[in-house]
């Protein structure tokens, strides 16, 4: 059945090639500015990636006006302020972010203030509050999970008020996403597995969510197909450029899918698990994905069944329900392989969640914005048994 309405908008140019992050002259010439401020973190800098990109910029005739490396896990409001001050003082005309989701989200928020001035929280938190394009933003992801390089979302943690602020705006979409598998070669197996499961969760939740469309479905299916092909290999052998590339493309496609179709209660539970027990987002998603699908099963079985062939499962002669169960089994099988290869945790008890904390996670999921888009109404009492199963 077709949706009554959907919108698809993705102006971000995507380039893919091993090594392309150091050879961006054609793309930068089109963007047209010369002065870039780099946002990254110490880990990425210590790997030499920041210098490599800076060298490439110099060859392209561009100037690096400054570098901010203090971004921490979870993009934080204080970092946005500090980074902004340095970027402003440097005379930057645009930003390049090199890193994972926190780095990219920080740069998106910095770009709002660098372009428009004002107060980030009072003036811009919310949905579609911006009225015109921001300064150019080039993103070079170094993980294959968040998809933030192609989403219109930035999530910033306000440490003082202990709350996460969401900024949703089409003007936050970066100008250029640079998918260079060489930038992800150093990701350790556990992080490769966790970020890969994050991307898979984005794609699957986008596919079965209430806001899906034929266009977002196509991106979600493409992402899932690539993940099933490449995630195990990328986790097994981090130097496998083909597998790394497949994962990078998959994460970007999943990002495009969920930026349009949103995510659901699995993200709601993962956000709560992260907030309460500091469980990394990808790990939480990886654990909770099959259980969240089971919670939604009656509402999504018909749609979920269509993923069976996408995931390489033979569903000839099976009912929708049987094929949908096959999909969940395939996800569990994948998680099991990632557990063996990359020590990806499979249970909430393995990541420091106490059993008496499950009710709080269920409550947190109910209160999470993602749950609004879940195919089944999210009720704490009804969700709890599934969290207990995941424990």
């Amino acid at each position: 059945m077709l949706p009554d309405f959907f919108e698809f908008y993705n102006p971000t140019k995507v380039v893919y090639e091993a090594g392309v992050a150091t050879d961006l002259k054609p793309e930068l010439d089109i963007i047209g500015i010369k002065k870039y401020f780099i946002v990254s973190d110490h880990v990425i800098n210590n790997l030499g990636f920041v210098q490599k990109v800076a060298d490439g910029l110099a060859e392209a005739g561009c100037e690096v006006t400054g570098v901010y490396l203090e971004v921490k896990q979870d993009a934080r409001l204080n970092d946005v302020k500090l980074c902004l001050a340095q970027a402003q003082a440097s005379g930057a005309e645009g930003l390049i972010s090199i890193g994972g989701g926190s780095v990219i989200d920080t740069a998106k928020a910095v770009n709002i203030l660098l372009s428009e001035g004002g107060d980030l929280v009072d003036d811009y938190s919310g949905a579609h509050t911006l009225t015109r394009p921001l300064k150019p933003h080039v993103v070079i992801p170094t993980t294959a999970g968040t998809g933030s390089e192609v989403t219109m979302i930035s999530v910033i943690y306000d440490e003082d008020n202990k709350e996460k602020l969401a900024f949703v705006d089409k003007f936050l979409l970066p100008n250029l996403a640079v998918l260079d598998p060489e930038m992800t070669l150093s990701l350790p197996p556990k992080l490769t597995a966790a970020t890969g499961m994050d991307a898979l969760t984005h794609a699957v939740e986008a596919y079965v969510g209430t806001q899906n469309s034929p266009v977002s479905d196509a991106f979600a299916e493409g992402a899932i197909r690539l993940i099933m092909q490449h995630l195990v290999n990328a986790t097994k052998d981090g130097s496998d450029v083909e597998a790394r590339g497949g994962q990078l493309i998959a994460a970007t496609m999943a990002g495009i899918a969920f930026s349009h179709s949103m995510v659901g209660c699995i993200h709601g539970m993962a956000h709560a698990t992260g907030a309460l027990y500091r469980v990394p987002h990808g790990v939480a998603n990886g654990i909770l994905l099959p259980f969240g699908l089971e919670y939604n099963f009656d509402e999504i079985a018909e749609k979920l069944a269509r993923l069976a062939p996408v995931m390489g499962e033979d569903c000839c002669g099976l009912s929708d329900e049987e094929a949908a169960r096959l999909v969940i089994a395939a996800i569990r099988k994948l998680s099991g392989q990632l557990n063996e290869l990359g020590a990806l945790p499979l249970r909430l008890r393995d990541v420091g969640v106490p059993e008496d904390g499950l009710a709080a996670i269920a409550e947190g999921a109910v209160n999470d914005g993602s749950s609004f888009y879940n195919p089944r109404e999210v009720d704490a009492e009804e969700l709890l048994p599934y969290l207990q199963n995941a424990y």
Partner: protein
Amino acid sequence: MGMFKTTEEFEKVIVGFFQLVGNTPIIADKLLESKMVIRFTYTDPDLVVVVDCAGEKTEVRPHDTETKAVVEMTMSSDIAHRFWFGMVNLTKALTRKEMVAKGPIPKVLKLLPAIKPSYAMYPQYLDANGFGQYNITKAYTPPTA
């Protein structure tokens, strides 16, 4: 020109409805739990209404431009009107800028299930309070002389 011709006309309809919702326990309890203060800024015709759920009971204050709101919602009166019939896809309205929401969106989304019963109340409220001509769920019959 929108469905409502004057601010006064729209104010009577929307403020009266907000007061009804604020006095309906099944909804009001959830609103008060949220402690939300929402300012609605309407256009065509223009009107500002604050719905303040921070106290012990829900307060509805038209023309309040002073209170610091947690969430600011901006939309046309027609979109607001259709919203209360349950006819507005929020994602679509936000994406197309038919609504602009400033502030913590998850808190707004969390309230949506709580206000669901009000969608059925709105047409009944219109009919019961002499605003039947705005009830778009039924064919409108103009009053006879």
